[in-house]
């Protein structure tokens, strides 16, 4: 079972490598050239040595001829080796690039259900660290695996050419080395996997604590978090030590086996030399071959352990890439053109976890251009409703229709294009202020951008930034205040003005003076546009055509402000509590 999975992983990797078969072909060809040339050298050296017998018995012209030949070989080999290395590099890094590229593209297709449920640090660790380790293993594999195998066969061939008997002895002893190597490799695979998992856990913890370092410090929790970090760190240290040590035994073990081979060659070779079967030069060449023959075993065993690690990492990356993606748009999915904004929710049921029911039998009819205010205590399901409207999640039962078309039958892209969304949690990408504003309309002119920024009252603070609209927003918008970030998010929507709006506490971090001004802009924007507004401002709520009062995931009251007050239900209570304050 386990082995099967490993083979699967290898096949997946091969699929990526296949794209570079040209380079791969050159690499294999050149490694053959390198191996043959470098194997021929000891033979030549041996020949030369046979011409150097003893005092006064040296054939200088013969030696010189051989050495000349060697010179040519050396240059040829070195050149082939260089090109081969370059090819290997190219293949490895391109494969890695492709894997990362596809993994990232996959990330963009994963359902929010997956992303909401997995620690970001873990996903990042798969895409960065694991892929990196995979690259290291792959490169080592390329540079040493082929030439290793070729060297083994080449050496056997050359040895055979000198002496069949010695070669047979060597061949008999070889499997010993392989058995040792594969035994250790098998043992270490699970250790590497454990190491990889523990590392993921740690990355996730680092992400959490370093990312929220300010809170950690505000509560003086440095010591406690450090303690917890150390606990994971200790575990990682222990399992890393195991993985590294046991895998590193491979090398000395195979080398020991190889030394035995070397000694055997020496004994048999010496006997043969005495009986005149081979010359001293031949013996020297044989010993050199025995040495070279054992070297690739060392390398391959080293590569095998590295590959084990790489495979474990690759598997984690592939796991991510094989996650169930968002259900793709149906082939016959309609492209939603400019909608007039009619939205119908029929009998909608939804829950994040099957055993915990949340929303059931929810009905709502929204006429074009209506303003829907959603109110309710925190955690009442406002955000869930937005998740469903935008189709970040699919409904479990019932349907949501826009222009009488089920949103599951239209392309996500066209659906989302028709919504403008401002969330309470602001998000800015690293890039310039301008980049952030034009997200919804990449081809906007400077005038349009400035006009939008003026409408959202962001222009005045942007103007004061060191580089104006070209100021770089730091990671996570670190150099802007929460309110400024929110203004930028509003500007984004102001610029592209889609037919439907979703404003989720869009102005919660903006001071009220500015908010009033923005509200005016919002009011203008909402004219003729269906809008869903999660808000706390009474004026916004009162001006809405329909107020949805939500509690525990369901709509408990629905109607205009006056209607709801007359009902004297939950809304009326909420409304009165607020006035009681004033």
């Amino acid at each position, binding site marked *: 079972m386990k082995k099967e999975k490993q083979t699967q992983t290898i096949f997946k990797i091969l699929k990526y490598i296949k794209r570079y078969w040209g380079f791969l072909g050159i690499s294999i060809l050149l490694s053959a050239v390198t191996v043959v040339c470098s194997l021929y050298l000891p033979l030549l050296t041996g020949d030369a040595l046979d011409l150097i017998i003893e005092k006064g018995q040296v054939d200088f012209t013969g030696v010189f001829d051989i050495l000349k030949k060697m010179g040519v070989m*050396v240059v040829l080999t070195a050149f082939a080796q260089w090109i081969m290395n370059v090819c290997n590099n190219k293949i490895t890094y391109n494969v890695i690039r492709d894997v990362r590229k596809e993994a990232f593209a996959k990330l963009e297709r994963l359902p929010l259900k997956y992303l909401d*449920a997995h620690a970001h640090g873990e996903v990042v660790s798969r895409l960065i660290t694991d892929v990196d*380790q995979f690259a290291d293993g792959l490169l080592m594999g390329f540079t040493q695996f082929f030439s290793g195998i070729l060297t083994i066969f080449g050496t056997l061939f050359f040895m055979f050419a000198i002496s069949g008997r010695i070669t047979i002895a060597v061949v008999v002893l070889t499997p010993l080395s392989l058995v040792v190597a594969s035994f250790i490799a098998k043992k270490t695979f699970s250790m590497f996997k454990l190491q990889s998992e523990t590392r993921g856990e740690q990355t996730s913890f680092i992400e959490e604590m370093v990312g929220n370092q300010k809170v950690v410090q505000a509560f003086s929790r440095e010591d406690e978090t450090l303690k917890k970090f150390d606990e994971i760190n200790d575990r990682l240290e222990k399992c890393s030590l195991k993985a*590294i040590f046991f895998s*590193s*035994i491979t090398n000395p073990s195979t080398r020991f086996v190889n030394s035995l081979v070397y000694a055997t060659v020496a004994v048999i070779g010496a006997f043969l030399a005495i009986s005149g079967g081979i010359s001293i030069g031949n013996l020297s060449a044989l010993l050199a071959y025995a040495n070279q023959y054992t070297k690739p075993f060392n390398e391959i065993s080293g590569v095998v352990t590295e590959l084990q690690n790489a495979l474990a990492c690759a598997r984690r990356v592939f796991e991510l890439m094989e996650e169930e993606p968002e259900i793709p748009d149906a082939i016959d999915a309609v492209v939603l053109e400019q909608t007039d904004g009619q939205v119908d929710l029929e009998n909608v049921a939804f829950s994040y976890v099957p055993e915990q029911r949340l929303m059931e039998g929810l009905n709502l009819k929204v006429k074009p251009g209506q303003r829907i205010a959603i109110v309710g205590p925190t955690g009442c399901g406002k955000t869930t409703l937005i998740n469903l409207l935008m189709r970040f999640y699919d409904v479990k039962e019932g349907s949501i229709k826009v222009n009488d078309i089920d949103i599951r039958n239209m392309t996500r892209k066209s659906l989302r294009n028709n919504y403008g969304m401002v969330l309470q949690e602001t998000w800015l990408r690293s890039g310039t202020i301008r980049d952030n504003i034009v997200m919804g309309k990449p081809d906007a002119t400077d005038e349009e951008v400035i006009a939008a920024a003026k409408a959202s009252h962001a222009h005045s603070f942007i103007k004061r930034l060191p580089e104006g609209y070209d100021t770089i927003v730091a990671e996570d918008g670190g150099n802007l205040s929460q309110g400024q970030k929110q203004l930028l998010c509003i500007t984004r929507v102001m610029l592209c003005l889609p037919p439907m709006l979703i404003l989720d506490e869009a102005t919660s*971090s903006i001071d009220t*003076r500015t908010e009033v001004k923005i509200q005016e802009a919002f009011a203008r924007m909402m004219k003729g546009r269906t809008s869903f507004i999660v808000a706390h401002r009474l004026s916004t709520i009162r001006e809405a055509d329909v107020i949805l009062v939500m509690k525990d995931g369901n709509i408990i009251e629905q109607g205009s402000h006056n209607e709801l007050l007359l009902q004297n239900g939950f809304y009326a209570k909420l409304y009165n509590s607020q006035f009681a304050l004033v």
Partner: protein
Amino acid sequence: MKKILALLKDYKKETILGPLFKLLEASFELFVPLVIAAIIDTGVSDGDIAYILKMCLVLVVLALIGFVCAITAQYFAAKAAVGVAAKLRHALFEHIEKLSYTELDTVGTSTLITRMTSDVNQVQNGVNLVLRLFLRSPFIVFGAMVMAFTVDVKAALVFVVTIPLLSIVVFVVMYATIPLYKKVQAALDRVLAITRENLTGVRVIRAFNKEEHEIKQFNESNDKLTNMQVFVGKITALTSPLTFIIINVATIVLVWTGAIQVNDGVISQGEVVALVNYMSQILVELVKLANLIVSITKSIASGNRIQAVLNIESSMKDVAIDTDVEIGAQKESASSVKQTNITGLPEDDVIVAFEHVHFTYAKSKEEALTDIHFTAKKGEMIGVIGGTGSGKTSIVNLISRFYDATRGSVSINGVDVKDYPLESLREKISIVPQKAVLFKGTIRENICWGKEGATDEEIQRALEIAQATEFVKEKGLDFVVEQGGRNLSGGQRQRLTIARALVKNPDILILDDSASALDYATDAKLRKAISEMSDDMTVFVVSQRAASIMHADQIIVLDDGEVSAIGKHNDLLDNCEIYREIYESQFRGSVL
């Protein structure tokens, strides 16, 4: 690199024994060519079978000793490498926790994360390889040269020329590639940053249908990384062919010299074989070394990046628990003030005082706060209100000393905040930050951040005041909050962060716009509960909503970093235009 090397000190035994055993192994390897020469010159030419068998037994024994030495060396090397990596991660984590907000603002989180993970891994590999091979290879190279001298001085001169040449090649490649590897890591940082960004911003990206665009951006950075890697690869790929040429040319010269020496009767045929063997031993080692250099240059680059983090010094000097007498005396006065507090000072005891405070953020030209001057008395509620970017958060950040005032002073109980040890200062203060951050763990664990080992009653009381009892009752105190509190709604998260701050019964409570995700009714109940909680607690409420602060004992109205007015609600309505504007804008809403 210095600090990293210093860490190896803790593994003195391992760092010495590892290479030592490796060298032992190598020494035994160096005898092999001599044994072979003996077999050829004595065994084969005399036809002495017993001698040959004896020598082969010597070969096996040498191999066995080498095997034991090698395994021992591997163990020590792995132990030291893994240990150093663990210590490094610990050091980094500890160091990051000591950085002040100013440094955290400027460094950026994702690069800190790569440095703690991928860079540390590189260093671990590097240390492991260095201990295992880096000493061994030069040792074999020089050992082979020394052994060559014992065979024949003239032939050995070939080695003397070859070895420096090889060193030059190795060092030039290393020198050229270290800065390039740094660039590779920086490119990797960028790829990481985009990935993180896409995870946090997934809703916005999908709402704007920017997936394709993001993929394009990612691919650009990814390609840049790849090109960089391929480029560096091309340079390092030169190492092994170059060493190959040098060694083999040396072999050719060696055979020629050997031929002359044998012809003159200085050395034997077997000795030439030994010399050639030594040369090929050098080649084997150098091929290993060449591969090694790639890893080592990578780890040096990574090591430097780690060092760079460790070198960032906190711009905030903490007062150690036991410092010199002068500060000790001040501290004493601080604690004595506190003690007299308990015994009951007059009601108008000043707890927080800002004296002409100016504050500028690092890398910013403009002042965020200008000449802030006010005092807050014990048990008071202070409202802070003002426009976006008017400096509300900056003020409260100075109280907890997350930043140091550029000019002027902030004092608590009459002692400058800079003279308190940070931990005891923050002990007095509880803060509910704007962004409701929770951590992976149970609700109980999260609340206990505020007070280690709080009892269930204390927790329940805090939850009650924070208006969180209802949903917590439903989920239970042992409900596991996922990383970032993803499985809770914004309002639930916020109420838990409030409970977390309340559980320790602080002297000073700071609510930094921390009711933004709460509806009005909950917000009102919360404020009422807090005001009833304790008479001694001083509460700072930063808010956008006039309703949240209008009942405060003092309201500080900020405008563009300056105090526009301080006073009570009614005075401000009469005298402060900005306040009136804010108030009316909000309450006009309900009249309209």
